[in-house]
């Protein structure tokens, strides 16, 4: 057990995977000598050699396509996409090959590829560096999509993702790379299941679901709300595809109210699936329609405006107020209603 940053926890998980399985290879732009632009692979090429940690030529389709070939040959490629916004050139290989080859070949060919994607905003970057493209992948059958939110999960889940025989998109909330937390490296890859959601704080009034970068914000919101006597149950999805509906449903059956928050655009985002899926599963327990607090339906804006675009504590609480039918932005607030 030691205290380490979220980023270092991923590094440790990668190191462990390289250590344990000679078939694990890391691929990506600048991941070797430089250790990646976020230094997540720092030191790994030095320790494992350039045949295990490959600097790839600058082409994401090329990286993903050669990863497919390596998987065909029995390797377990772990691909780093430098930033969220650069995954699209690889989209065809991901959607048509990585996601489908196991099905296409009736199970003969496995694609145990892990795609690491630093994602999300809030780091003051120019365009294409703050995207939240997860919904494209959660809608793609054949893929698994996960996002850790704590150093411990970052460590455990990267190992689970690499150990998984199916392709996993592993979305790293890059603005949390420097957050510190305890990491127990002796935890195995068995529990919790890679697909299992985590109840972050228990509560009785509202279920607040999120993942990755906004889990901390959601927890803070729950803390702030408790001052107003509102009890929020915060759930960290961890797995975005498939969603652990069991855990969310159990919570909503208790609270009767669901708020979902993510950075991605609202329309067609993961919140839509979650709202639809929960309504399907426990309509009669809902006291209010599921509320979505999300990024707007706009291209990611310039960094001076990103704080408006990204859901924050206040916007989440406004959503909670809506779910509870308390004064909120839509009803118009009572004076002093804003925190």
């Amino acid at each position: 057990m030691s205290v380490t940053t979220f980023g270092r926890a991923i590094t440790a998980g990668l190191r462990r995977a390289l250590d344990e399985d000679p078939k694990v290879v890391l691929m990506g732009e600048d991941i070797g000598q430089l250790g990646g632009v976020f230094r997540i692979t720092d030191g790994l090429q030095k320790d494992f050699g350039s045949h295990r940690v490959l600097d790839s030529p600058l082409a994401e389709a090329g990286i993903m396509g050669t990863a497919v070939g390596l998987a065909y040959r029995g390797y377990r490629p772990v691909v780093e996409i430098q930033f969220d916004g650069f995954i699209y050139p690889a989209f065809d290989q991901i959607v048509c090959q990585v996601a489908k080859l196991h099905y296409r070949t009736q199970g003969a060919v496995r694609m145990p590829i892990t795609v690491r994607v630093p994602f999300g905003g809030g780091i003051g970057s120019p365009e294409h560096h703050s995207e939240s493209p997860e919904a494209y992948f959660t809608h793609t059958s054949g893929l698994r999509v996960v996002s850790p939110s704590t150093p411990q999960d970052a460590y455990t889940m990267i190992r689970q993702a690499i150990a998984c025989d199916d392709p996993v998109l592993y979305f790293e909330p890059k603005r949390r790379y420097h957050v510190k937390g305890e990491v127990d490296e002796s935890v195995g890859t068995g529990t919790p299941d890679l697909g299992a959601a985590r109840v972050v704080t228990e509560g009785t009034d509202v279920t607040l679901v999120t993942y990755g970068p906004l889990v901390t914000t959601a927890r803070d919101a729950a803390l702030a709300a408790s001052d107003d006597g509102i009890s929020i149950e915060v759930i960290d999805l961890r797995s975005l595809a498939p969603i652990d509906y069991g855990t969310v449903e159990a919570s909503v059956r208790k609270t009767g109210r669901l708020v979902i928050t993510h950075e991605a655009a609202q329309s067609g985002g993961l919140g839509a699936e979650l709202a639809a899926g929960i309504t399907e599963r426990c309509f009669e327990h809902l006291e209010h329609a599921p509320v979505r607090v999300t990024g707007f339906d706009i291209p990611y804006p310039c960094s001076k405006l990103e704080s408006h675009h990204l859901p924050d504590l206040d916007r989440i609480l406004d959503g909670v107020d809506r779910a509870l039918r308390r004064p909120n932005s839509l009803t118009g607030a009572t004076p002093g209603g804003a925190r």
Partner: protein
Amino acid sequence: MSSDGAVSGSRTTAGATVFPGPAHPDADVPVHLVDPDGVRHPHASYDPLVADVDGAALQRLYEDLVVVRRIDAEATALQRQGELALWPPLLGQEAAQIGSGRALRPDDFVFSSYRENAVAYCRGVGLADLLRVWRGSASSGWDPYTVNMATPQIIIGAQALHATGYAMGITADGADSVAVAYFGDGATTQGDVNEAMVFAASYQAPVVFFCQNNHWAISEPVGLQARVPIARRAPGFGIPSVRVDGNDVLACLAVTREALARARSGGGPTYIEAVTYRMGPHTTADDPTRYREAHELEHWAARDPLARLAAHLDSLGLLPAEYADAVRSRADAVAAELREACISMPEPAPSALFEHVYSEPNSWLERQQDHYERYLALFGATSAEGPR
């Protein structure tokens, strides 16, 4: 232009690069060992590579050509009769596929497009397996590992990267096998194919890029994809290349052997442009009369790969009538077997819908499957038939 088929560079003058003569995708003469009339010509570099190909070996190549053409014709007929949903004929490209396919070792690994049925035949793919995809019974015809050939790729060019990655794995394993990527002239435009060249060159991967320039990408002539011979593209990526007469099975065998030997000995990738012609439609759904002239077909019919080898064998006295008849009967027998395999192919069960999406159980899918099974139960349907 060099006449030995090796790629020559552009001529340079003081100043900028100037291309010799009008740019044309057929400007360079391809390597050939046997000409369209069946006459064997000596070739200093390639003769040694096929020195072992004696009369019996030539006859085996001939048998291959006859059989795969017969398979192709039968599959086309099966499509016309409604037994297959679609078929992409390889008519005209037999020599390119057999010449290269027969150069491979069992432990080499092929990544092809949809048209390489003769290559699949060389790899030992079963007759029924050739048809599964086209009958609509499965999304892949065979288990790639049983024949060391990937399931044919429909996304144009994607497999060039797969072959390159696989070859990187061969290097990492310290093995001396080779990955071979087959693709068409149209595919050369796709980003994936070009990126594959960069990756292959960078990692010096043991991969052979085998481009069958059959002059057409559906209705688009090769000139739309390439203003100069396709084989000239690879050297700019640091990859040696060669332009070969794709209708000369012996030349195809020779250049492929050369490329494989280079790859096995650590010499990295090679790019082969096999110049051939798609004598049939793009697929059975296509009508080439809409976009190409009859005289083009005539021109290429005179260069038919099968007729050429037959003429050559004949000139060697290796094509007596009874032998030719025997080969033809064998081909007919294979065709009959193919037909039978097609017609008796089992229908897939609806439960197959949900299998192998993941290698582990998946909660989303289990729920949908459970629901669909309950739905089918409404109709009292067994899992082998749907509601209709």
